[in-house]
């Protein structure tokens, strides 16, 4: 597969996983530790499915892209999560939080490269 397509797939994978997190957060409002409550919580089920889908896409990418490149790129996640929480959860993501996210991304890259 060509490199641009692999990158696009990684964007999709990370976006799916961040959206999964958003739904996990949304599901948590009515979250109780009871099997029935968990199984009937559609947002929780959707969160799990989105996460599974993102893993599936990631595994497809890993067939053609070395893990030392693919892994640090998955920290795009943190950027998506920040954008989604700003937009849909009305959280204020200020310069400090963006700085922290930037540092986390640099750290992940240092570990994988």
């Amino acid at each position, binding site marked *: 597969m060509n490199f641009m397509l692999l990158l696009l797939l990684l964007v999709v994978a990370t976006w799916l996983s961040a959206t999964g997190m958003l739904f996990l*957060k949304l599901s948590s409002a009515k979250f109780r530790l009871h099997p029935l409550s968990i199984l009937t919580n559609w947002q929780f089920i959707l969160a799990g499915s989105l996460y599974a889908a993102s893993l599936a896409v990631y595994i497809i990418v890993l067939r053609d892209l070395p893990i030392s490149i693919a892994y640090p790129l998955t920290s795009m996640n943190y950027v998506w999560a920040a954008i989604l929480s*700003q937009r849909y959860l009305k959280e204020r993501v*200020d310069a400090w939080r963006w700085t*922290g996210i930037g*540092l*986390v991304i640099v*750290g992940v890259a240092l570990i994988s490269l």
Partner: protein
Amino acid sequence: MKSTPLRSVLLVVLCTLLVAVTHLLLKLAMARSGTSWGLAADPLLYAGIGVSLVGGVMLAYALKGGELSVLYPFISLGYVWVVIEGVWLFRERLHTGDIAGIAVIMVGVSVIGHNGLRKRHADRKSARKRRARGNA
């Protein structure tokens, strides 16, 4: 309510430890099973899946009380535990990049955590002020 309690942050950190345990179980399962059928029959695989399910439920609990933009970056501590696990249990070599990466991640999550928790104090203060004004 726009704040993140310390309890939520600690729960997420605990989750990342569970992620590291999952990683370990999967690695052991993969190492001892030659074929994919062998892997599918390995109890360690299911133990790994079980542990990550527990992690998911815990994460939902953590998110319940806090902000996603504060808590989510803490997931990156998972990378740190995996590196430590590799060095400690599998005698993998620790590279300079690993040490630098761990340090930078720690600084990054500290900045975010400090920011989120400080906001909480500010929220409390303004709530107290509002109450005081209400009484006056």
